[in-house]
């Protein structure tokens, strides 16, 4: 009999303890965000839409059509068309990213040595039509115009190729030797894009 009373009392006590624990939250503020009305700030490194970056001085794309990102992409989302001019120099003709296939892994950004492709902080780009999710070069460039990035400072520690040193200021070309590690435009640059 004593056992039963004891069990009953402890049961009631523990139920009340649970209620008290959840009751503590009654007076607290909600931590949820009312999504379409408010948006939270995604961090600097957030991997969202893939964009192409433009050189702010020349207005041309940083991309040199080296195809490294295309080969690095695990899902085959990137398709690059290259044409060669009469001197044999490679030019970018079209650059498509198929957002059906892209898994936002960030490997393309890592592969690129020229700060030409980046996963921006934009994450809202739904479309009514599936076709519209295949972004061509114009769309990718337009999306990347307001994305801040740091141009890699290159050829500092490469005494072997002094002729390539000025390339750090101008647009990089395909025949510049690729610098060792991908510099990645991940530096803390404050933005308001979202």
């Amino acid at each position, binding site marked *: 009999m004593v056992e039963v009373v004891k*069990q009953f009392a*402890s*049961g009631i006590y*523990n*139920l009340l*303890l*649970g209620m008290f*624990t*959840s009751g503590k939250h009654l007076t607290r503020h909600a*931590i949820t965000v009312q999504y379409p009305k408010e948006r939270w700030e*995604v*961090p*600097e*490194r*957030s*991997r969202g839409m893939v964009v192409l970056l433009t050189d702010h001085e020349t207005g041309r794309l940083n991309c040199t059509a080296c195809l490294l990102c295309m080969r*690095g*992409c*695990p*899902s085959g989302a990137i398709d690059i068309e290259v044409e060669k001019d009469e001197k044999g120099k490679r030019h970018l003709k079209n650059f498509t990213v198929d957002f059906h296939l892209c*898994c*936002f*892994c*960030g*490997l393309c950004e*890592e592969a690129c040595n020229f700060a030409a492709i980046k*996963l921006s902080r934009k994450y809202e780009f739904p479309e009514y039509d599936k076709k519209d999710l295949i972004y061509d070069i114009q769309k990718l460039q337009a999306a990347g115009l307001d994305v801040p990035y740091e141009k890699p400072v290159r050829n500092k520690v490469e005494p072997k190729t002094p002729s390539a040193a000025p390339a750090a200021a101008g647009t990089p070309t395909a025949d510049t030797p690729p610098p060792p590690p991908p510099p*990645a435009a*991940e530096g*803390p640059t404050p933005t308001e894009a979202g």
Partner: protein
Amino acid sequence: MAEELRTEDMTVNMGPQHPSTHGVCRLVLTVDGEIIRDCVPVIGFLHRAIEKMCENRTYAQCIPLMDRFEYCTSMSCNWAFCLAAEKLGDIKVPERGEYLRVIMGELNRIASHLIFVGVTPMDCGALTPFLYTFRERERIMDLFEMTCGQRLTYNYIRVGGVAKDIPPEFIPKCREFLGIFEEKIRDYEKLLVDNPIWIARNKGIGIITPQLVYDYAISGPSARASGVNFDIRKNDPYSIYDLFDFDIPLGTNGDSYDRFNVRVNEMRQSARIVAQALDQLPDGEIRAKVPLKFKPNPGEVYSRIENSRGEMGVYLVSDGGPKPFRMRARGGSYNHLQAVPHIVKGLKIADLVAIFASMDIIMPEIDR
């Protein structure tokens, strides 16, 4: 009128679309009223051919796939794969890289156990812990997002180290989280551990004996709840786990109740490891120099790590090319699911739900 009443076993399908099967698992149950006479798990609904896909991708490209191998602990999956690739290629990871891996791996273990601590009571009818644990998990997701940019599929650990260094605000935020976390764990315990309803639902239910653990190669917290003291972090230390001081929580009875408590206590130990790692975090390189076209030596390796659900192992065969010749991944859940029919025979359907949840079975790991 006087027709004889008779009873007959009935076959019902639980799943594939069932909230308590944590993924898409179909359980074909033969029931006699509420009593389960037989249970046959049918798997394969979530098959994505990850192993085959890895054969057609370079080592670096396999890592995003491994994220999807088991999406509650993507970090550990990346880690297991990279460990195997490093073994093949004889790569030494810099010290800071190892520390960052441990920090991320343990935070991910906490995040995964938080899902467990939230979802298991929900399967038993208690919704509140779910809301609380996801609030804490959100903090870990924030830490991951500021480091690698994603909340679920991190793609952070690389062959030879990690992808990016942690941002400066990571360490204070992580310490802040660890500071409040102990109190939160006590909250979960207050809600459940002594709760009479919880005890009635879980104590003495779904007992896994140590013999069954050996028979089915059950690993991880589910095995330790039965008193089998085996943790790869201690018994076969990989990375730098031998530098940290932590305990292995053990259960005694091997019932659902113990499995829950073991995981709750494991979160405490993981938090301890993260705190130690943050204190000792050295400066330096985060990633060893690995050539862009990484071609490991021909050969085969098996490397295993302690994932939050048990032993996670990756078996890699290389023919010296840039792509794995064969990749095979082992997740703990497969063995756990095999043991479920053994345990649930003779119990009620409601117990099956509690047991299934308490084993922390997750389907992507089984179907791959």
